[in-house]
């Protein structure tokens, strides 16, 4: 029930994001979702792509530091309170969100929330118990 995400270290200098997207495009890798976390000195780009291992390989070949981590993708109806309901469950269960980002699927009916929790196993159990829809990596890429 986990989705593989790749994270790339971004030095705070001009053109690094452009370089990453160029490398991915040249290798026909499609980005499904992304977020950039930035500090004064550096950034971390987090990506969900259709070909995780290929993306990791080509980025490494181009000199980037790349990591692979697991995140949880939760599908909620795209309406008021969708995210709030998931976070309410997380709060009740004492789960801490390390970071999250979201995108809306093509039909526009549902939103996909990408979560990294401090305790991923507990999070999956809690979200399943609360009957949220948890997507697999293949499902996220098929959206």
């Amino acid at each position, binding site marked *: 029930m986990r989705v593989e*995400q790749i*994270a790339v*270290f*971004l*030095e705070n200098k001009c053109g*690094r994001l452009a370089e990453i997207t160029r490398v991915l495009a040249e290798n026909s890798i499609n980005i499904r979702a992304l977020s950039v*976390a930035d*500090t004064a*000195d*550096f950034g*971390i780009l*987090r990506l969900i792509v259709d070909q995780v291992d290929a993306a990791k390989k080509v980025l490494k070949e181009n*000199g*980037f*530091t*790349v*990591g692979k*981590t697991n995140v949880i993708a939760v599908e909620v109806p795209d309406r008021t309170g969708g995210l709030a309901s998931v976070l309410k469950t997380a709060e009740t269960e004492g789960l801490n969100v*390390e*970071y999250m980002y979201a995108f809306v699927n093509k039909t526009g009916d549902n939103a996909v929330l990408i979560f*990294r929790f401090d305790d991923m196993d507990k999070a999956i159990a809690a979200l399943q118990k609360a009957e949220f829809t948890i997507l697999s990596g293949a499902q996220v890429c098929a959206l």
Partner: protein
Amino acid sequence: MNWEEIETLPRPGLESIQLNRLQKLVHRVYETVAPYKAKMDEAGVKPGDIQSLADLRHLPFTTKDDLRDNYPFGLFTVPMDEIVRVHASSGTTGKPTVVGYTAQDIQMWASVMGRALAMAGVTKGDMVHNAYGYGLFTGGLGAHYGIEYLGATVIPVSGGNTKRQITIMRDFGSTVLMATPSYALNLADAMADVGVSPDDLKLRVGIHGAEPWSENMREEVERKLGIKAVDIYGLSEVIGPGVAMECLQSERGMHIQEDHFLPEIVDPDTFEPLPYGEPGELVFTTLTKEAFPIIRYRTKDLSRLFAEPCPCGRTLVRMEKVTGRTDDMLIIRGVNVFPSQVEHVLMGVEGVEPHYQLEVNRQGNLDTMSVLVEVSENVFSDEIKVLENLTKRIQVEIKDLLGVTCAVKLVEPKTIKRSEGKAQRVIDNRKL
């Protein structure tokens, strides 16, 4: 206070005192310090071979590595119960360089420091604002005892808390400022910020050392503080500040207190002694120290010696302002920093690659150091806090070891230029 007679002795008289002291010293270290004996035996030289000052060249050199190998007290010549103080400075790796003093050494140091102050025209009537750091660093306490020896009033203000320092200088009527040249400029700028002008102060002379500074910086200090700024030289391995001092009339560097510290200039490649006037590495032999005498200590400082008589009347040779180093030591805000120390810290952090670079800049009058570290997969994380903890940890460990606050900048792999042969570890952007 006038200078002591020995400072103006004709050279033959001074040299005979030096030779007598050198011979006694060589006998003493040979008999009491095993590492010195071993090195002299290896070089095939006996204490009796020192028949003239020129024979000094037969004695083996001492380096920072010798101090490290005998850490902490292995080169002391007296039992520990005769040691009344220790100081320490940066070693080349994790361990500091430790030096020790007997009561007599402290007294001698105070007297040479007192003489140094007298060279700058300081007298009993002066109020001396001592902004050198107090602590393991020899600067603060070394100056302190010299000021008291001279009979002037010492304000032991130490470093930092700049605004309070300005208030004290104004309210106490400080007449002499002792500080690193960069801190002197920092004080001048801070004075401008709080609306205190040099006319509000009684400062007359500044005594500046512990870091390299140029003639341009001297002019800036003199202009901004309305004082005469003079240069002082010293290093803990020899004794601390006061080894050499610029007098007010000198236009050719600092008088070396030769009755206590015997200087040589050697070729940095062949280590052969060079004649007066030739540039090379400065080497010192202490003639009168008890606890921690040192023979032919290679300072790694580049300078020249001048024997021409000084208008002030002193016959002591003068050394040119230090023009550079033969190694990669940096001086950051008065603290000696070796790139190898930073490497030592990084190697202790799991997963950090051995590729790093130090970037030194001068922002305003303050030196700043950034350590550039490549982010390998081993330390990378998708979470910001993990990387921030890494930079904080490196920062704290460098501060703990070196006593210098630095910025840690994470960079992408392979962005630090790989050189063929010796890596370029330091980018020094300071225009000194």
